[in-house]
């Protein structure tokens, strides 16, 4: 019972704040609402007995990615009173497309016999995850580190000096490089 309650709580938090992220006219508000979306998702992970995943979600997405997003977004100058109306010409097709996609996914999700597994007990997962990272899944594990290394090189290249300076307004954001490498 209280499990259900927690689930609906987290789900509502995720969905409602996601709506706010999408529909808010203020980009910084949208960024801050993302906090609740990501947090709600972490809660859902925790309810699925994926405790390590939940903690990682919070550390990486809230502590890392979201902070970087906010950093960049806060450095932009936003008009306080919304950024003018968006035309119907964009809103209507996007809305129709989104609704159609939702209908499609709804049909798929509700109308499908999924390969369900028996509910797992809420055993701690961290030790087993660690063990599989270094045994069965050592190759993907190392592979990911190569991906992150590539991302790090990319970040280093992107912040390298650019002589015929295009406008350098937001370039000076004091964000330390390579935040996305933390995992």
């Amino acid at each position, binding site marked *: 019972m209280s499990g259900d309650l927690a689930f609906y709580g987290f789900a509502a938090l995720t969905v409602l704040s996601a709506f706010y992220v999408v529909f808010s006219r203020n980009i910084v508000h949208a960024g801050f609402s993302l906090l609740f979306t990501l947090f709600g998702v972490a809660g859902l992970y925790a309810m699925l007995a994926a405790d390590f995943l939940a903690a990682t979600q919070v550390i990486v997405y809230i502590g890392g990615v979201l902070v970087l997003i906010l950093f960049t977004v806060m450095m932009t100058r936003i008009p306080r009173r919304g950024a003018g109306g968006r035309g119907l010409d964009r809103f209507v097709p996007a809305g129709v497309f989104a609704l159609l996609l939702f209908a*499609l996914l709804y*049909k798929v999700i509700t109308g*499908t016999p*999924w390969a369900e597994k028996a509910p797992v007990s809420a055993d701690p997962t961290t030790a087993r995850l660690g063990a599989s990272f270094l045994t*069965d899944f*050592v*190759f*993907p594990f190392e592979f990911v580190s190569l991906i992150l290394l590539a991302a790090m090189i990319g970040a280093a*290249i992107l912040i390298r000096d*650019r002589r015929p300076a295009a406008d350098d307004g937001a370039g000076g954001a004091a964000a330390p490089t390579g935040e996305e490498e933390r995992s």
Partner: protein
Amino acid sequence: MFETLALNAPSWSDLRHFVPETVLVVTFLLALMADLFARGRRPAGPFALALGGCLVALAAAVSSLPAGPRSILGDLVVVDGLAGFFRVLFPLIGAITILFSWASGEIMGPRREHKGEFYALVALMAFGMCVMASAADLIMLYLSVELVSLTSYVMAGYMRTSLRSTEASLKYVIFGSVSSGVMLYGLSLLFGLTGETTFVEIRAALLAGRADNFALLVAMVFVLAGLGYKIAAVPFHFWCPDVYEGAPTPVTALFSVGPKAAGFALMIRFFYTTLLSPGGGQAAAGAAAPDGVIVGPADWPLLIAILSVVTMTYGNLVALRQTNVKRLLAYSSIAHVGYLLMGFLMLTAAGLEAILFYLLVYAIMNLGAFLFVIALNNRLGGEEISDYAGLSTRAPWVALMMMVFLLSLTGLPPTAGFIGKMYLFAEVINRHWFWLAVVGALNSVVSLFYYMKIAKAMYFTPGERAPLRLEPLHTAVLILLAAPTLALGVYWTPFKNFVDRAVAGFAGLGG
């Protein structure tokens, strides 16, 4: 201390079957470190290391063509004929890219700059593409696509001083992340349907009827969207012209063949393994039926056929209007994807052989055409068709070599492109897809128009008369690429045998 899953846990001995890939990774790391110590205007250390590494990987790949399928590294990677073919192709593409980047002004820049990491990235990308070609698991599928994408984003934005290049990189990132998200959603649906992550197990689950057909269709279309983005098939091609135009030309050359071939490799492995149940095998060759039974009721070949027709027609028609050669070649590369998809939907060994052969040929001729653009860009500083006016008098041999590439891209004899197209169309007609063959032929005719626009500018439009001397390295590589383009048009048996052996050893068709 901890119990592990029942997979065959990877061990060091697995690396014995993974030599070219290992060499490429080590090359990447060494070149990166060598870049730290690079002195002088040009980073010779990383260049030499990366080139040498790619060549060693190439040699290792050629000398150790895998005989049969072998699952390694915890069943996440399968080394078979198909992987064997692509691990020859990718180091080759990498080596050629490294060679012509060395003399390209766009990459090396006018001033002394440390740009050694570019060569390291090429090696890393070659590694990622090799893994794409041998991924046997949803996890490796996604990770390898991401590795190739990430290196691509970095390379597309490599000219930091150019606004165009930065824009290209940004566009690439945005389209790339959206399509990768869509693909990931598809993969998660697929996992939900079957409860498995390895391709083979997914097929087993599908054969056992454990999946709802509608959901399967949606999942597969989502996955197709992600892979279609990598190969730039039509509804997912929007990024392609802008990125090709904006990125440094050597990078564009690499993009137009590398990730595309890797995308095809992954598509072949994924769809042939999960959706095709090995039925007749080679014995059925000659009949109008595919070499296997499609799982599920969806008419996949028809869907892909429509995709193929739309792709090639769109690519060719839009290419007609282009005046920028890089953009023109971008659209033409979209059109080539359409031709390749024709072979893909045959679901036969012969179709696969045609695809692989065409990919090999396409890699050579398209790299050649782009190299021509790079070499002239170095001298002329532009890549409009009008820039090439009068080239036949300024640099007759170079113009002639470009002519060879253009003829080959059109698919005219006596060039390699002709042979490649011949195999493709032969298989299409063999399987009674006559309308598809007709559309393909019409498209080839259309493509003749715009390829010949370049030829016309070179040969018939008067322009400057002063002789043009190219970088010696560029001329050398041009010859290196033009020679096989011609030679393969006359004598292609060893390459065809090589491709046939690769397909015979492909795990997906029961080989």
